[in-house]
């Protein structure tokens, strides 16, 4: 349990340190060190949970079980590798004169603020605190979206702030209804604790929980980027600094989905029906198909990949909605590989945009000839995200298809169609960018592609052979969520 306190403390210390002290030359490195330490702590936490099972802190404020512990490690890992990329990237942005030193301080302080909010969402046992932390994540990132202070970025940040703020307010109403139902069982102080609610789920009033889940799904669904609540997502991803896009896509969306699934477990226990699952399947499938179509109409490279994020989040929501052990296992795996691959892609996209000096896809050309590492990185990343074997995305999408065929065979064609549309949508844009002649005067830049290689390497590993401890972990989480073993 000390690990959790240490984790949260380090992030708080990071916020305070970056905000209060003056500018350092090595501010980026310092950020990397903090994230590296947090990664080490989470690995320690994970091994403890692996050996001793679920941990509930004495005050019952924190709960670490097999479901959230791997997301915590994933969060720390992506946070760490992105900070490796962000240090030289932001230094380059300063050289270009896009940023001042004061804003760089804001950036690093809020980077830690965002990480703190993510750790809190994942570790807390209290559904109310989960909401507070989720809103905190919006507040921490909203000033980062407008970091460049261009009219577009301010518009994007305002949209993000208003839509996510209003959306997540619905989730608070859902949480209040949940509390209202739970309070009737007595013991109001513990009525929002997930561990207590999960034990007593069968006694909760099913009618209230059904209404509450609708609000929770709309609220957290805004953050997942489910269609038609997704409008903020491409704007916020495309206008903010690239490291931010990587962590938003890789972490924030996952954690919002995590909140929905936690609530679904309660609703399933109370209603003994599949209503929450049907809602998630509907929203998920619509998001998946709509986002796949929108991929074709994009002109900005970061917007392209943010629609791809919506598509994949839709697929995960759909898979969690199907329920059952196979679909849940697939969704958990997909969450992991999507985070890894998507943050790797955003890192390469950041480099590509710095090489070409623009995010407009029509003007990004000949990447392989200019800087082979970046070009190949982008191509391989896109291959991985489109679901080609042998990468992990293929495995998880295949499992989702398998589960769909077993439970709802008539939905399989729709899924296949969506995957096909998304594939063509990605490749019609990527092909001319990586191949082709390079424009005159386009020069390679100083790029750190180690994070990309590590991420894609992991995705490859997960596609070829899932290591034993990881599959064990996923099975335990599957058992916890779906109630049946794989």
């Amino acid at each position, binding site marked *: 349990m000390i690990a959790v306190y240490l984790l949260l403390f380090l992030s708080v210390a990071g916020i305070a340190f970056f905000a209060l002290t003056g500018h350092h030359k090595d501010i980026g490195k310092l950020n990397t060190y903090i994230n590296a330490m947090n990664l080490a702590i989470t690995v320690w936490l994970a091994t403890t949970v692996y050996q001793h099972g679920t941990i509930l802190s004495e005050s019952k404020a924190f709960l670490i079980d097999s479901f959230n512990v791997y997301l915590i490690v994933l969060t720390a890992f992506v946070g760490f590798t992105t900070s490796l990329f962000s240090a030289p990237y932001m230094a380059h942005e300063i050289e270009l004169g896009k940023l001042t030193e004061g804003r760089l301080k804001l950036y690093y302080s809020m980077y830690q603020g965002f990480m703190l909010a993510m750790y809190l969402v994942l570790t807390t046992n209290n559904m109310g605190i989960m909401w507070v932390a989720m809103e905190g994540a919006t507040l921490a990132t*909203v000033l980062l979206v*407008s970091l460049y202070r261009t009219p577009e970025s301010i*518009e994007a940040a305002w949209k993000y702030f*208003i839509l996510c703020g*209003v959306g997540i*307010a619905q989730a608070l109403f859902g949480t209040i209804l949940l509390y209202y139902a739970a309070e009737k069982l007595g013991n109001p102080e513990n009525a*929002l604790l997930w561990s207590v609610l999960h034990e007593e789920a069968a006694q909760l009033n099913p*009618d*209230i929980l059904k209404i509450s889940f609708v609000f929770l799904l709309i609220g957290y669904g805004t953050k997942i980027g489910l269609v038609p609540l997704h409008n903020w997502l491409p704007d916020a991803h495309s206008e903010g600094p690239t490291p931010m896009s990587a962590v938003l896509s890789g972490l924030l969306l996952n954690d919002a989905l995590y909140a929905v699934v936690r609530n679904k477990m309660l609703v399933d226990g109370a209603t003994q029906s599949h209503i929450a699952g049907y809602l998630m399947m509907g929203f998920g499938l619509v998001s998946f198909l709509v986002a796949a179509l929108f991929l074709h109409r994009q002109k900005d490279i970061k917007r392209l990949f943010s629609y791809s994020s919506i598509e994949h989040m839709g697929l995960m929501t759909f898979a969690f909605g199907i329920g059952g052990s196979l679909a849940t296992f697939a969704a958990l795996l997909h969450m992991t590989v999507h985070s890894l691959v998507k943050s790797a892609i955003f890192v390469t996209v950041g480099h590509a945009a710095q090489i070409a000096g623009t995010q407009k896809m029509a003007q990004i050309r000949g990447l392989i000839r200019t800087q082979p590492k970046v070009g190949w990185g982008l191509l391989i990343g896109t291959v991985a995200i489109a679901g080609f074997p042998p990468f992990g995305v293929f495995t998880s999408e295949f499992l989702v298809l398998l589960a769909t065929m077993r439970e709802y065979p008539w939905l399989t064609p729709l899924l296949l169609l969506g995957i096909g549309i998304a594939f063509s949508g990605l490749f019609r844009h990527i092909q001319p960018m990586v191949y082709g002649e390079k424009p005159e005067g386009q020069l390679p830049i100083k790029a750190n592609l180690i994070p990309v290689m590590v991420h894609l390497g992991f995705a490859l590993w997960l596609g070829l052979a899932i290591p034993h401890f990881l599959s064990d972990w996923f099975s335990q989480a599957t058992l916890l969520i779906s109630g049946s073993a794989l």
Partner: protein
Amino acid sequence: MNIETQDFYTQAILSMSALVGLMSFLMLGQGRLPRLIFVFAMQGMLLTLTAILAASELHSPHLYISAFLTFALKVVFIPVMLQKQVFAMNIHRDVEALKNNTTVMLSGASLMIFSYYVLQPIIHTSSMIMLNTLVVSLSVVLLGLLLMISHRQAVAHVVGFMSIENGLFFAAMAATDGMPMVVELGVAFDVLVAAVLFGIFFFHIRTSIDSLDVDMMNKLHEVER
């Protein structure tokens, strides 16, 4: 059930919730920003009074803290900040021509009926106070959304946003005697930070588009041209 046969506390809470709902309707039809902000502050004041009433009746001292937080944030800090912005921008004399005012008001009324319809299933689990207060708070949330849709000024959007928070606070307090203290404090902290960020944003929006009219923010599209 006749309202006159209820005890004093029930009657008081029901009237308060009716007034809170009324404030939302007043905001909906308000085209002048200073008045809009004033009505918003009134709604905050009503919430504070309700919290004090509930605290003394139910003997739950932590509701006094919520009452104090609401007063400090929703009656003093946020309205004063918004009012300052409005005067600094010199838009306090502008009257925003609200399109389709009748339609907006009628949709507001339908939203309230819709809230009753949505919360109908929980009628048998609750007392009259709980049902009505929950319905009013849900409709305050929905009316806040409608306010944001029908107004174009960024300041009005912030007022709508904060009145949604008011609705949520009212739900938490009246229907469940307040959430646990940690959650309550966390929510208040988020509202405070949000208010400060809105202040920063007004400044940025003004410097970038020289207006607080959100219709001027139209550079980003779903499908790019």
